């Protein structure tokens, strides 16, 4: 009995691969889906994006009892109505790919709410298993559930489990296997629409009968039309004859409250299940979560807690990340570059330069990014996993609101102070597509440590005792520009819309290190793989531009471009050398100092600072600092933006936008400062 033919004899097409069963894992957010997925697939998993979408797609393989299973992790969603890309992806996958079994992961401690998704899944044409997770939490809260009763009431197999301890996994797999083989009777009892809407549902079904495109089930389509589902409405408008559509449309308009009736029908159904299966309801004790939230979500103490956590994050970054970064730079990148030079000493010098400065330099920049990236991914992963992320979003929501953003945008943006790359990648925690896009377009305006290093070098030289004041002023200016840009972009790109603020605050729980570790590993790898190619390519190109034709920066193509740009630079009081310094900061922000060192023949010593002070006015210096703090992000950040938006259009838009903003900032500040000095 180790292998079997899948039960779906009704579908015409044969199973995709012999003895490989397709299983989809569905569940609402925070029910432990990642934990179960990682438990089943281990390292035998692959992370990518859903075709044409920027939503993460995870799939993996496992074998059980001689059969190979392909497990696809569907995006975590509360329902299956087309409010977001995630919901569309989840249901399209089930309807179009017809998995052999769908596992609906449900939180036993929050049975009513988390069964809502199962109430939608049970109406779809794929066999369902309900995995009742977090039985331990439910027990702690005094809730007792009888899985057999739930199973009988729903007509689908129900398996109790505790995914964090691996309990019930064996039973789940056995049930999946038997269901896929048709060894258990499967007679689902899906919810009905609320009684007062039964008639209109039938009317719609009658109107669309015969016009529903395969493989969509007719009743499901009728239900989704009543719910006002965007995608299904569009689909039926296209497939129905115009007069028939008019009729459907008229019925729908007369029942525009049907959405609530459909949802109520599902909760009534859930209510019946829960009343039958829960033998002891929740005791009224005050939970740990409630106690912690008295502080974490308090309007004042919540901010104190957040500030404390963020302080800890930065302390960690500087005490671990920066030294490791320096070590990598010296002992890996430096040593490797020297080795290449030594090995090629007999060959043409441009080849050694290309490999040592261009290729290893570019790859090295990426390598030295990794420690900080890993720390930030880990921090985000821990905060998300223990449940704190939602609280941080909660206390910051009012403030972020002013910029047209969502509370969840705060943390990624804040991480930008360390490095813009994790800030951009960190926007994944934002569910609203619009808020996410806006956040990643704005992230480069957060002054990262590399930009601050440039300020730290130039400000004391030019402004002496006022350097601290100038530095703070620059940071505040950048943040003010960020806030203003947020408000403006939100208004013009998104018509001032803001996603409604309504989100779940999950229970706090201990971090699952396996889940966090895997996420850190996969995200770092994805960054190196996807953004890495771009970073390397651009590094080599900019290196070539700054080396050829003469081998010296001051005669290079880049210098020629700088000279060509000088008339524009003059508006900001910048000469061609400062323009070139800005251009090379595209590789890495701290490069601008090194470039100035080369151009002034002074290296990065104190001598350079003195030379610069003797050459440029304070107004020029200030304009340069303003422009560089607002300037287009480094290539790594651009790579990350490209990776996360999945669109060159938005990436180029952002570069153009920041270019305009930074140059305008430079011009304004130069002229204002010239009045002062």
């Amino acid at each position, binding site marked *: 009995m180790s292998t079997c033919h899948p039960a779906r004899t009704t579908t015409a097409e044969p199973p995709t691969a012999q003895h490989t069963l397709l299983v989809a894992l569905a569940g609402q957010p925070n029910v432990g889906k990642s934990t179960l997925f990682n438990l089943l697939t281990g390292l035998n998993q692959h992370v990518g994006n859903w075709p044409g979408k920027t939503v993460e797609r995870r799939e993996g393989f496992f074998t059980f009892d001689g059969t190979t299973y392909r497990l696809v992790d569907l995006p975590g969603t*509360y*329902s299956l*109505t087309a*409010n977001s890309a995630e919901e569309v992806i989840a249901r399209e996958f089930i309807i179009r790919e017809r998995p052999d079994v769908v596992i609906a992961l449900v939180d036993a*401690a*929050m*049975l*009513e*709410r988390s069964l*809502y998704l199962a109430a939608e899944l049970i109406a779809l044409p794929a066999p369902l298993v309900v995995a009742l997770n977090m039985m331990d939490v439910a027990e702690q809260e005094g809730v007792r559930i009888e899985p057999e009763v739930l199973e009988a009431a729903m007509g689908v197999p129900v398996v109790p489990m505790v995914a964090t301890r691996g309990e019930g996994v064996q039973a789940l797999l056995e049930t999946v296997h038997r269901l896929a083989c048709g060894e258990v009777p499967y007679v689902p009892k899906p919810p009905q629409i609320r009684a007062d809407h039964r008639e209109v549902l039938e009317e719609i079904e009658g109107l669309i009968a015969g016009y529903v495109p395969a493989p969509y089930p007719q009743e499901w389509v009728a239900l989704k039309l009543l*719910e*006002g589902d*965007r995608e299904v409405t569009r689909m039926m408008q296209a497939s129905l004859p115009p007069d028939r559509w008019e009729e459907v449309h008229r019925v729908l308009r007369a029942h*525009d*409250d049907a*959405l*609530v009736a459909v*949802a*109520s029908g599902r*909760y009534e159904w859930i209510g019946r299940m829960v009343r039958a299966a829960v033998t002891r309801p*929740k005791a009224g004790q005050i939970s740990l*979560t*409630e106690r912690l*939230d008295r502080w974490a*979500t308090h*309007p004042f103490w919540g901010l104190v807690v957040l500030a404390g956590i963020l302080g800890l994050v930065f302390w960690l970054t500087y005490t671990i990340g920066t030294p490791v970064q320096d070590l990598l730079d010296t002992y890996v990148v430096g040593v490797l570059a020297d080795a290449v030079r030594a090995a090629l000493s007999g060959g043409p010098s441009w080849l050694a330069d290309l490999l040592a400065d261009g290729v290893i330099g570019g790859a090295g920049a990426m390598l030295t990014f990794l420690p900080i990236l890993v720390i930030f991914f880990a921090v985000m992963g821990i905060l998300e996993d223990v449940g704190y992320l*939602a609280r941080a979003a*909660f206390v910051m*929501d*009012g403030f972020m609101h002013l910029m047209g953003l969502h509370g969840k945008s705060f943390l990624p943006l804040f991480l930008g102070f360390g490095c813009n790359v994790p800030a951009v990648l960190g926007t994944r925690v934002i569910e609203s597509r*619009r808020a996410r896009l806006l956040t990643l377009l704005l992230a480069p305006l957060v002054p990262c440590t590399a930009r601050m290093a440039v300020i730290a070098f130039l400000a004391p030289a030019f402004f002496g005792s006022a350097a601290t004041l100038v530095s703070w002023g620059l940071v505040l200016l950048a943040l003010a520009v960020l806030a203003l840009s947020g408000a403006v972009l939100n208004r013009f790109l*998104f*018509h001032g*819309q803001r996603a*409604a*603020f*309504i*989100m*779940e*605050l*999950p*229970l706090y729980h201990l971090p699952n290190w396996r889940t966090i570790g895997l996420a850190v590993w996969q995200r770092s790898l994805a960054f190196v793989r996807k953004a890495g190619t771009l970073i390397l390519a651009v590094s080599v190109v900019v290196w070539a531009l700054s080396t050829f034709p003469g081998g010296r920066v001051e005669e290079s193509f880049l210098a020629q471009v700088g000279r060509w740009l000088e008339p524009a630079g003059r508006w900001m009081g910048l000469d061609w050398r400062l323009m070139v310094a800005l251009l090379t900061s595209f590789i890495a922000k701290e490069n601008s100092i090194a470039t100035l060192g080369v151009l002034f023949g002074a290296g990065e010593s104190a001598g350079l600072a003195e030379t610069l002070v003797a050459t440029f006015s304070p107004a020029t210096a200030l304009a340069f600092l303003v422009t560089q703090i607002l300037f287009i992000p480094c290539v790594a950040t651009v790579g990350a933006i490209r990776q996360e938006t999945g669109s060159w259009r938005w990436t180029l838009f952002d570069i153009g936008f920041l270019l305009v903003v930074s140059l305008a900032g430079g011009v304004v500040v130069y002229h204002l400062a010239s009045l002062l000095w």
Partner: protein
Amino acid sequence: MRREPKGTHLDGPATGGSGVIPLNVLQPGEHGIVVQLAGGRGLLGRMTALGFTPGAEVTVLQNFGRGPLIVRVRDARVALGRGEAGRIFVRRNAG
């Protein structure tokens, strides 16, 4: 990105109905039974998926009179903005 139709109300806020109040006026510790929801389809879809449907019991856990609220609905803790909470109409429940 389509704009949410602003007019998809399920009856306006009950003016004459006895004791029907927006959720955001409930004090911490008070309970209410959801009577009706107002809002565009997008918002209604998210509210219902998170457990707010007519008949559902809601307990206010945090409400400082300004800023977002935290409520418990169907055993879940849900944070929602003041404006969003103002679109959920409840009948105060002594229980």
